[in-house]
């Protein structure tokens, strides 16, 4: 019990003194997940919107596939991406392994189904009367689609926030693809894994506190978005 309390105290010291190792991990996490969120939103929102808004043959099957991908274990994604970007693999010449963009690519794959599925849900939950209202006010087809996306904005934002939360908190992919290289690809989660394994509870707790704080903020924003939706 004692050393947990001790760990806390040391953790606060690390955070308040601006310990470079700790903050390097924090910024790396922010860098990586920001990259992956931009990529997954950029691809996921249009795809999710189309899936939720339009009708087409095979729509239900595709939706089912996307929902299954939601449950992708991170280690499976990590394995798959590693096989792709290792030097021997098809994308080896890109030199993505052990780099921040590399982790971002893998995280994007992990997080994309979340964005697609939640966006599709948000759009498909639009009130039936929405389309009629907008059409009768004179909107054409394209205008109606754009308005539909804007109308579901809270649900879509919630999708983005949920995805961000997932990306920030995952460790399997970051470890396998990033390599946990100090100063370069060590994220909050991989650092926690490492430090705890080494018995450095203080740093682990410090990082854990930052992660918890981020998770709380993300969750709080998510609640606000969901309520508005």
């Amino acid at each position: 019990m004692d050393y947990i309390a001790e760990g806390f105290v040391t953790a606060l010291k690390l955070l308040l003194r601006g310990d470079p190792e700790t903050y390097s991990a924090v910024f790396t996490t922010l860098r990586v997940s920001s990259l992956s969120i931009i990529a997954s939103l950029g691809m996921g929102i249009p795809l999710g919107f189309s899936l939720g808004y339009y009708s087409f043959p095979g729509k239900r099957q595709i939706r089912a596939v996307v929902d299954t991908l939601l449950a992708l274990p991170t280690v499976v994604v990590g394995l798959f991406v590693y096989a792709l970007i290792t030097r021997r693999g098809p994308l080896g010449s890109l030199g993505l392994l052990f780099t921040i963009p590399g982790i971002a690519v893998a995280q994007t794959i992990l997080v994309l189904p979340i964005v697609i599925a939640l966006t599709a849900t948000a759009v498909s939950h639009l009130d039936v009367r929405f389309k009629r209202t907008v059409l009768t006010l004179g909107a054409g087809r394209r205008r109606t689609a754009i308005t539909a996306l804007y109308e579901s904005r809270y649900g879509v934002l919630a999708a983005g926030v949920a995805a961000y939360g997932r990306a920030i908190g995952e460790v399997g992919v970051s470890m396998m693809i990033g390599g946990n290289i100090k100063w370069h690809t060590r994220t909050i989660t991989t650092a926690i894994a490492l430090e705890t394994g080494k018995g450095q509870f203080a740093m682990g707790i410090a990082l854990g506190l930052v992660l918890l704080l981020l998770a709380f903020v993300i969750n709080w924003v998510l609640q606000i978005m969901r309520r508005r939706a």
Partner: protein
Amino acid sequence: MSNSALYEIQNLKCRYDENFTLDIPSLTIERGKSYGFVGPNGSGKSTLLRIFAFLDEPDEGRVRFHQGDFSSERALAKKELSKSKAVTMLLQEPYLLKRSVFENIAYGLRVRGIRKHLRARVNESLGMVGLDPGMFSHRKWSELSGGEAQRVALAARLILKPMVLILDEPTASVDRLNAQLIKKIIKVVRKQYLTTLLIASHDLVWLHEVCDEILKMHEGRIMGSGEENFVTGPWFSELDGLWSTLLTDGQRIRALPPPGEELPLRKNAIALLDPTSIIITTERPDHISAQNILFGRLVHMYTFEHSERVKLDIQVSDMSLTCSITRKAASSLGLLPGLRVWVVFKASSLQWQ
């Protein structure tokens, strides 16, 4: 095809599974006039209104608007666009976009590429529906009562100064106060804007006050205009050759059968009874040759501006009959709502559909 025709409908049919939700051989809507549509739920009012609003397409038949063509065979995209901008519809339940009141009302204008003087026009629109711009303009969609929301929705359509304004039960889902307001507003709109109004409502009094013509609908068909009563089957053949149908309290309505028709084929035929062919008495009449002498209760009396006639709604068994008599007759009978009356009409007064 007169100049004043705005809509011309021919052989319009809409289907749902095996049944026709709409079956209208011909209908013309004239520019600048206002039309009321009455009928029970499922009679096809909403479907028809949606077709007028170009929200739905008919399965068969043609709807001519202005001079364009809109049918299931040829829908020209460009013409569709301009059509939808001339016509607007207010739905039964108030629905607003998830944005401020201002943005909701301005939406239609923005869609038409209008960017200037928005605030002034929105304020004017809010004023028309009786909402103070200072208090309401910035409110969010979720901060309004049902009645206020419906008025905002109306404002959003009025601001477009549409050629055609379609209202589907505009007061059904709001409280009485707001219903009054909305009805008042529409009356003003009608006077000021020369908009063509198409209104579906259960409120007959209001429709009488606002509409030039009232169309009754029943099972997808238009049963003529005016206030005809329709009497439905099943009909049975009587010994004396007349057809009769039974009301729930045991009374019967008798009609002269259509010439040359056989009963089994027309068991569920519908007969129309002109309101002016009904005679009302307050005592049971003897020595009358009419075959229909029915007993009922006067429920409603309506008077209209500029009319010598009075409309009566009389409850006979499970039916509501509409009668039209002169003011003089009404006052000499001493008619008051709640009074028990006798309803008399000839078997030959029923006209078959």
